[in-house]
């Protein structure tokens, strides 16, 4: 068991998350977010999800960070001190957390090989990927073939993001019409 490593990683993630909330220097926040992603990626490796770890590292720690810095470069680097009372958000968050925690009480034990998800659907992928698809990486097989349609959707999402960013940023900067006085 990697219990100690688990605990250390999760504790670090918690600390990073709290620091993200508290810090107002946004470059630091961006860096912390990137660290959070790296820690998550490490967890993914521990949890046997190599592809996910790879992606999380590339996306969370790489692309997202570059994008955020690029955006901050255009917008400024510090956040103002919060004026509003945090009471309502705290309430919402605690309530949501409690409900979610309550719901997790009936989950199968962590790592339990007899959990339903290991007995239904997934075994077929592990058994049949070899004979049916003929490649060793089951994740790729599921991603591109068994659930290939999801991945078509995923590719479309990426395309949509590129389209959206282009729609928003590529035009020459026009003066926006001043808000209609009547509305």
């Amino acid at each position, binding site marked *: 068991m990697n219990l100690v490593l688990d605990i250390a990683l999760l504790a670090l993630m918690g600390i990073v998350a709290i620091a993200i909330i508290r810090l107002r220097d946004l470059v630091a926040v961006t860096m912390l977010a990137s660290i959070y992603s790296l820690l998550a990626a490490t967890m993914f490796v521990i949890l046997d999800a*190599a592809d996910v770890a*790879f992606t999380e590292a590339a996306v969370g720690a790489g692309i997202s960070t570059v994008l955020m810095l690029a955006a901050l470069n255009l917008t400024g680097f510090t956040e103002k001190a919060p004026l509003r009372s945090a009471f309502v958000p705290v309430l919402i968050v605690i309530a949501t957390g409690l409900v979610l925690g309550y719901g997790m009480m009936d989950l199968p034990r962590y790592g339990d090989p007899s959990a339903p998800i290991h007995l239904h659907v997934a075994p077929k992928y592990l058994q049949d990927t070899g004979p049916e698809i003929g490649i060793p990486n089951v994740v790729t097989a599921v991603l591109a073939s068994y659930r*290939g349609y999801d991945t*078509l959707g995923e590719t479309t999402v*990426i395309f949509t993001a*590129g*389209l959206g960013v282009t729609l928003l940023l590529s035009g020459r900067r026009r003066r926006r019409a001043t808000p209609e006085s009547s509305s």
Partner: protein
Amino acid sequence: MNDQPIARILTKALVPLVLLFGLYVQVHGEASAGGGFQAGVILGAAVILYGLVFGLDAAKRAVPLGVLYPASGIGVLIYGGVGIASQMLGGDYLDYGVLAGDFVAGQKLGITLVEAGVGITVASVMIIVFLEFTGRRDPA
């Protein structure tokens, strides 16, 4: 960064390596971790690195936006087109088994094709997004 010779030399050496690595991840995704998406990100990153060091204009000369915009769509079209092709050949949508004479060969072919589509879209979108953000000047 344009006047930092070390960075420039390093980048010149690094970019081809990164590109190569990206291609490796693209074609080797069936056997180990990685695939079209990860490869696309890496390819994109190589260009982004190039742009950061040699300047946006250089990056735009290397991969013009006029090519990237259609490319981002073509990736999706390749992916979706494979599905249409399998319908033409009598299968259900994205049923790669009908693409080649042998079911397993068809699957492999289909996966390779769609992963290529994913890679093209992801790489071009990554670069597009980077160029759009950095191409926007700070408001005067």
